[in-house]
């Protein structure tokens, strides 16, 4: 139990740092919401090496913490809708057992942006926001793919050493 608490703290700190580093790397596409999705590395590692509950907890806690630290109520809402939808899709695809880490992460990236865009439509109450959709889908897929490759390499190398 003590070991688990320490591990969870470590992963939460790691996810928080990834989110912070990501904010320092702007992607100048002229469109809001295009991000690397570095924190998804941590979520993927946890999903594959530890467990669903733990991965979900870290994902949500990370969003709440970085929202309170660097963002505002709105950024928490957007991040949560993206984070939870992407987590659900990744979990389903992983459970299907047919697809590997890279595909799971790519789908996660796409659905993260779909979730955020959906929340934006709800909040702004205007479908003009959907104008961004194509670019956000493609950027989500590309960053998801990269993150998936990275996460897979990490999981293959140290995944079996992470044990509670």
């Amino acid at each position: 139990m003590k070991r688990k608490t320490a591990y969870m703290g470590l992963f939460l700190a790691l996810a928080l740092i990834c989110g912070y580093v990501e904010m320092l790397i702007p992607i100048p596409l002229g469109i809001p919401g295009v991000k690397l999705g570095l924190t998804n590395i941590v979520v993927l590692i946890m999903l594959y090496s530890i467990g669903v509950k733990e991965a979900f907890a870290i994902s949500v806690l990370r969003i709440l913490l970085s929202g309170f630290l660097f963002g505002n109520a709105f950024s928490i809402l957007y991040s949560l809708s993206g984070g939870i939808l992407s987590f659900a899709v990744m979990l389903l695809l992983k459970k299907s057992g047919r697809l590997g880490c890279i595909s799971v992460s790519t789908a996660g990236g796409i659905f993260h942006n779909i979730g955020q865009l959906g929340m934006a439509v709800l909040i702004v109450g205007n479908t003009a926001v959907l104008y961004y959709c194509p670019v956000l889908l493609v950027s989500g897929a590309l960053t998801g793919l990269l993150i998936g490759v990275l996460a897979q390499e990490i999981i293959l190398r140290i995944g079996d050493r992470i044990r509670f």
Partner: protein
Amino acid sequence: MHKRLQKNDVLFLSATALLLAAVLAAMLLFRGKSGKQVVITVDREVFGTYPLSQDNVVRIDTGTSVNELTIENGTAKMTEADCPDKLCMHQKAISRERETIVCLPNKIVVTVTGGGDSSLDAIVN
């Protein structure tokens, strides 16, 4: 997870890539013509409509926040915002129909339209 990329993954990723390429191609094909005006909506209500042909600085005072939209040389750009993230100010200048600038915290949407009332209704819905 012994093999890094299995046959299913290759299939899935190629299908996704094709789909996204089609979406992007459609976006480029159906890109709007140069627009005539911008419609500003604040929290679902139309705030105002301004012609792109006329240089202008629009102060969007919503009561709780102030943004500033600058219209210059037929393009519109958000030049001031009092929200914390300033994402709208980093969005590129818009000039073609359906191009949009959004300020999420202040619920401001700026969209380029062609000019007719019908297209305006379709976009504001």
